[in-house]
């Protein structure tokens, strides 16, 4: 499903060049559950952004569903992102003026899905994350865990094949973190690729595959259990 071959990502900082990723090779198959770990600044987020097509590699080949996506135009990349990829961020990134239901519907609104269909899907997704009765609340009226669940609902509403979560529990207490994690894992059970970046070893252990990045290179890549 995902194939990275010799992916490099360099940042020019003044005179210097920061090598955030150095010749990364990685394949991910459908339905995999991967934890990406490593010290701060090792390149975990950068890797996730490249997989999510938010960032472009400096060098290397990136195949998504056997299609080379490194050379796509902005429009094409946008539609791949829209249809294939769901993001979950550490800081939720909900639109503060929109209600939970509207935040969840946002990807469909941008994609031009008809309102009745949107409503149907939002209702279904809200039930799945257990926030059916909070649909009209704005983000500031929700707890951190609830906000992250809304963000997950938004990521899953377009029925993507990949969900990328960058420290999704980083801003949550352990109880809410567990809830969020369970919802993400349930999605993975349905066959969606789940890639979670985390500093939490406990979460790292739950994933079936654990990748450790150090200084922009994969140090270890182990299947667990």
């Amino acid at each position: 499903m995902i194939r990275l071959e010799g992916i490099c990502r360099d940042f020019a900082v003044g005179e210097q060049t920061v090598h955030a990723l150095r010749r990364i090779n990685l394949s991910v198959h459908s339905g995999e559950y991967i934890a990406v770990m490593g010290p701060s600044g090792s390149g975990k987020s950068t890797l996730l952004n490249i997989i999510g097509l938010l960032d472009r590699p400096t060098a290397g080949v990136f195949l998504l569903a056997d299609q080379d996506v490194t050379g796509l135009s902005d429009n094409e990349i946008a539609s791949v992102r829209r249809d294939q990829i769901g993001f979950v961020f550490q800081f939720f990134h909900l639109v503060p003026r929109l209600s939970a239901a509207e935040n969840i519907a946002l990807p469909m609104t941008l994609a031009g899905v008809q309102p009745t269909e949107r409503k149907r899907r939002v209702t279904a997704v809200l039930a799945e994350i257990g926030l059916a009765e909070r649909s009209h609340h704005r983000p500031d009226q929700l707890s951190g865990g609830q906000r992250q669940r809304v963000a997950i609902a938004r990521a899953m509403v377009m029925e993507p094949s990949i969900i990328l979560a960058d420290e999704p529990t980083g801003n949550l207490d352990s109880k809410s973190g567990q809830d969020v994690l369970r919802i993400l894992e349930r999605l993975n059970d349905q066959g969606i690729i789940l890639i979670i970046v985390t500093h939490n070893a406990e979460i790292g252990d739950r994933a079936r595959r654990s990748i450790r990045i150090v200084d922009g290179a994969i140090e270890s890549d182990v299947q667990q259990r």
Partner: protein
Amino acid sequence: MIVTDVIAFTVRSLQGFRLRTALMLVAMAIGVAAVIVLTALGEGARRFVADQFSALGTHLLIVLPGRSETTGGPPPLLGETPRNLTLDDALALRRLAGVRRVAPISLGNADISVGRRQREVLIVGTNEEYQHVRQLLIGQGRFLATPDPRRLSPECVLGTEVRRELFGPTLALGRWVRLGERRCRVVGVLGTQQHSLGVAMDEIVLVPVAFALTLFNKESLFRVLVEVRSRDRVKQTEQGIRDLIRARHDGEDDVTVIAQDAVLATFDKVLRALTFAVAGIAAIALAVAGVLIMNVMLIAVTQRTAEIGLLKALGAPARQITMLFVSEAAALSLTGAVVGLAVGQLGSWIMARTYPDVPIGAPAWAVWAALGVALATGILFGILPARRAARLDPVSALSRR
């Protein structure tokens, strides 16, 4: 994206930033209102003048003694007096085909007195046609009635102010007044005039033209007003008058004929230019509003960096983000323009109420131009911030907390 969703999204984000929305609406509204009010004033002034003229007949010709245009040759000698334009000349004009009315005018100052009350007044010697040509309103009695214009009937019509000063509260009709060396009877008093054309009609005394000529001991008329039967016969009649006078004056082309239309057209042109100029100045206010919109939209882009990054992560292509921000700017300027339009029309209405004589009101072109310019500036100045938003790098946009 569905159009209604674009509108809903735009409205929601405008509602989300109330102060900024309100400020931009005010700026745009002021610009549009300024255009509307100023053009309404300019247009009102133009129409006021036009109304004054056309109420007095757009097909009016004015015959003056003397030549105003030179057709080459040596300039006229200094002090050369023009030939007389006599009462007989004026009466002869009546026989021309296109002429409906002829009002000869003789003008001069004289003392008027009743008993010990005395003042100097402007005397207008004319005939009964003058009332129709100038559309004078009679307050009391009747207008001059001289079936034979050469007769020296000793009668006069007073302006309201003259009547008040001479007679106070007592009845003026039928009383005799002294005009210079002569006496005449008051047969009427003018009413308050609608179309004064700047002449203080309250302060004049009207007498039969022959009476005035004798009073001033003059041969020549001040001018002759000729009302043509219809507008399309003005040119032809103008020529007819010239020919007739030339024939009567031994082949000398020694009168000037002015069409009132020409005078009106000049006024019209000047005032219209003035209106355009004023509207142009007001349009600068609109442009300023446009720049303000650009500024505030740029701030909005900075404020909403994370949101823009999110939209990109959710699969919005650059042009969709451009479109969303441009429609925000457009919605702002359109709403501002509509508010400004309402304020401007209200302002014009209040001015029209305050000065009921002047037909104040913005012309349709000004309304459309103001709306159009507002929308255009809004969109134009909205494009730059929108493109900046569309170009944002989603990674750095999202990484900021």
